[in-house]
């Protein structure tokens, strides 16, 4: 590992000078385009970086851990995927050089890149891809290897056509299959690892992927060190580089105290601090550190409203709630300008997302009028009542989002001015999982923080058809929502699907089924200015495959 200059003498002036020099180096590096191959004497080659992370997750069984917000960072470097999905949701070839589908999106043919190998020497060919597809779909439940929960449940089987061609069959149209291949869980693992028992798969050093880095050493709950794979030559073209990585090693080190993670980067002891507090970002930017707040592809942070529970069975009350939230104030107070206003119930970078910001305008006069019309009368204490019952809303702060409670408190103030009586409850992750569910008997609003890779999966989640999650407790009662769901699920092309998605977004927001708060940033990176060239994929993971570090 390269030793950093001693922080012993790191005065503010020296920090400024270092920052300025590194900034100049960063500008220089950013103006230099990537070349497809990396020569041995490439000046960009070399260097070691340390990434401070708040957790290293739980099990390392690939199927059970790839969805983890923490372990996904490591998997992103140790493994590859069949397709690449960038931060804007654009799907491009990776290990699948091209693909075809039939008209009703029930059969797909994948053509694989040749010459790709796993780090254990096994070729990444058609049979390896079939083994991966099968384990993603079914897992080996009796051994404790789970299926990938978000892999299409319409999967039927896959077969090898030849060494470089795979044919995949689905029971129903599954337009989202190709984008799903770029999602968290769809990491390609060596068939030898897949065949190994669960306890062996749980040992990260025994897992072989085909990624640009391999696991050098690791210790549970402590660190993972990755080293460059010299023969790697199959990176995604979309990132502008396909040869071996530049950095020699990447160490992910667990430091659970957030202030220590940031202070370590400030003092030059580490290069990246993950999940800093939003309140710190502005001052860190001013100090010259690189701040990245990539948005994942998925739902915005907001509430799925339980329409079975009074008074939210009344569309006017839901619409009043939609108009009562000052979303700009949330960004100004809790977040920074790096966060974006919600313009739909899905993030604006999702392909197929359309701008319905006009339906999400803060309009207290409209909210008051709608509540008056619905029969909710403001009492002397400022609380609206109807038939002796107060206009109440119980919020359960989402334990997976650190800022959730602060936003709840701010919204409680906003709604309180309009006559709402707000009760905020905060549970730990375990209790939250037990007590707070979509459409639960005491849950009028379920706070959503959730990513997805393809908007086509959205409609079926919202209702209860095909094991859907019935977010709004509507069952099959809303004919229009059901119709949109069925037409989106059956769409054979994005050209057919996009107008339907637009209609769905407008309808869900107009009906007040989903109340967006803000677009979500769940991964915050504070980075040394010496480190440049990293990329962020569609699920907001940073990849240092293309990154370089200056002295």
């Amino acid at each position, binding site marked *: 590992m390269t030793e950093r200059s*001693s922080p*012993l003498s790191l005065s503010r002036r020296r920090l400024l000078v270092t920052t300025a020099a590194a900034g100049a180096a960063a500008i220089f590096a950013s103006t230099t385009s990537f070349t497809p191959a990396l020569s041995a004497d490439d000046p960009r080659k070399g260097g070691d970086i340390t990434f401070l992370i708040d957790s290293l997750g*739980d099990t*390392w069984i690939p199927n059970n851990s790839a969805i983890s917000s923490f372990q996904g960072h490591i998997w992103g470097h140790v493994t590859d995927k069949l397709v690449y999905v960038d931060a804007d949701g654009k799907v491009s070839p990776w290990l699948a050089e091209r693909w075809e589908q039939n008209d009703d999106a029930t059969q797909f043919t994948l053509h694989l890149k040749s010459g790709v190998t796993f780090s254990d020497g096994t070729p990444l060919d058609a049979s390896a891809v079939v083994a991966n597809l099968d384990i993603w779909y079914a897992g080996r439940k009796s051994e404790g290897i789970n299926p990938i929960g978000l892999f299409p449940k319409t999967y039927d089987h896959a077969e090898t056509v030849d060494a470089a061609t795979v044919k995949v069959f689905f029971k129903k149209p599954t337009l989202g299959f190709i984008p799903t291949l770029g999602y968290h869980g769809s990491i390609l693992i060596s068939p030898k690892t897949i065949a190994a028992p669960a306890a062996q798969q749980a040992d990260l050093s025994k897992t072989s992927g085909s990624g640009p880095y391999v696991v050098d050493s690791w210790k*549970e709950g402590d660190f993972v060190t990755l080293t460059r794979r010299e023969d790697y030559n199959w990176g995604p073209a979309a990132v502008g580089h396909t040869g071996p990585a530049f950095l020699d090693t990447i160490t992910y080190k667990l430091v659970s105290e957030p202030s220590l993670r940031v202070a370590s980067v400030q003092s030059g002891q580490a290069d990246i601090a993950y999940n800093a507090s939003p309140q710190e970002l502005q001052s860190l930017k001013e100090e010259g550190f690189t701040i990245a707040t990539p948005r994942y592809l998925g739902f915005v942070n907001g509430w799925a409203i339980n329409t079975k529970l009074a008074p939210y069975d009344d569309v006017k009350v839901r619409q009043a709630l939609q108009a009562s939230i000052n979303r700009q104030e949330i960004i100004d107070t809790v977040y920074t300008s790096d966060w974006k206003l919600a313009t739909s119930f899905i993030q604006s970078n999702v392909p197929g997302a359309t701008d319905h910001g006009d339906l999400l305008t803060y309009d207290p006069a409209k909210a008051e009028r709608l509540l008056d019309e619905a029969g909710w009368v403001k009492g002397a204490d400022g609380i609206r009542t109807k038939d002796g019952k107060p206009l109440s809303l119980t919020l359960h702060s989402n334990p997976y989002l650190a800022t959730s409670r602060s936003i709840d408190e701010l919204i409680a103030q906003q709604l309180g001015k309009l006559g709402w009586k707000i009760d905020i409850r905060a549970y730990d992750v375990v209790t939250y999982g037990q007590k707070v569910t979509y459409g639960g008997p005491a849950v009028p609003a379920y706070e959503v923080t959730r990513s997805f890779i393809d908007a086509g999966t959205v409609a079926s989640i919202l209702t209860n058809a095909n094991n859907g999650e019935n977010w709004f407790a509507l069952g099959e009662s809303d004919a229009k929502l059901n119709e949109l769901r069925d037409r989106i699920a059956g769409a054979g092309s994005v050209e057919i699907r996009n107008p339907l998605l637009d209609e769905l977004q407008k309808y869900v927001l107009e009906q007040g089924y989903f109340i967006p708060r803000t677009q979500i940033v769940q991964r915050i990176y504070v980075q040394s200015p010496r480190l440049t060239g990293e990329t962020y994929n569609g699920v907001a993971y940073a990849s240092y495959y293309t990154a370089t570090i200056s002295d």
Partner: protein
Amino acid sequence: MRNAYLTYAAKRLVQAVVVILLAYVFTFVVVSILPGDPITNVLRNPQNGFTETEIEEIIAAQGLDKPVLVQLSTSLSNFLTGDLGLSMRTNRPVTTLIAEVLPSTLVLASAGLAVALVLALVIAYGTRFLPKRFGQGLLRDFPSLFLSVPNFVIGLVLIHAFGFQLGLFRVIQPDSFWATFFAAIALGIPISAQIAEVLIANLDHESEQEYAAVARSRGIGQMRLFAKHLLKPSSLPVVTVIALTIGELLGGSLITETVFGRNGIGSLVQRSVTTQDLPVLQAVVSLAAVVFVLVNLIADLVYPLLDPRVKLLGAPERRPAAADESSVNVSKVVTS
């Protein structure tokens, strides 16, 4: 005397086995009555997209749907055959997980205890022999001060001062010498307070004894008086306190390890508690029970070596009991 030692040790070992088994069952009961487990907690996270049918299938495949008593008897029979099982959180053998982190905790706990002992001795010596103008009185307040400052605060102050400002160690290398040294200080300071308090009280008592007055009248130097005459009789209750602080060393190591980013038993427990990883918790609680029993056994066996007046319960009398007024059973050791 040797037979007495063996009989006594054997009795204590039988007691220890019972304590360990009880600790094992108790942990199982406490963790089992809490809602959730590491597997279903992950499966029920909506982000993971599992259907209710899939969740039920996986739970059944893992045997988590079986009655609690059946699960307990399976777990207990495995434990009795030395099989600690697999961690539910990581799917790795519990013995491997503990073996990976135990050395780090042992190093920290030993260093923390050493720091605590040195600090306690310095404070105790100072309160007796430091000239008043150098703050002899003030030293007596140190134990209260040390006890009232949480060790995570001490840890954060040390990290910022010596890690970030002076650069003596890198936070990302918590097992380096200096990082371990400062972690040991953070862990040792509150423990030193308890030892120092007992030591000061006993030194006060011993220095009023006639033999101390005789020694002083013979012109023995302060350091010699302290080390040769006062310290030994004053340290008997200190042994008891040290045995009792083992729990605090283990508990304190949880916080210290978290603050310093060390991967030890404390941080393993923290991760296992937050995810309700029952097999790991049962193993660690049993290990803690073993350590407690062993340390207390060692403390009991050390008493007679420090003070010949102390005798083990059941040891043959060397002299008629009536003539040995000062003999004390280990279970009734005078602590002040």
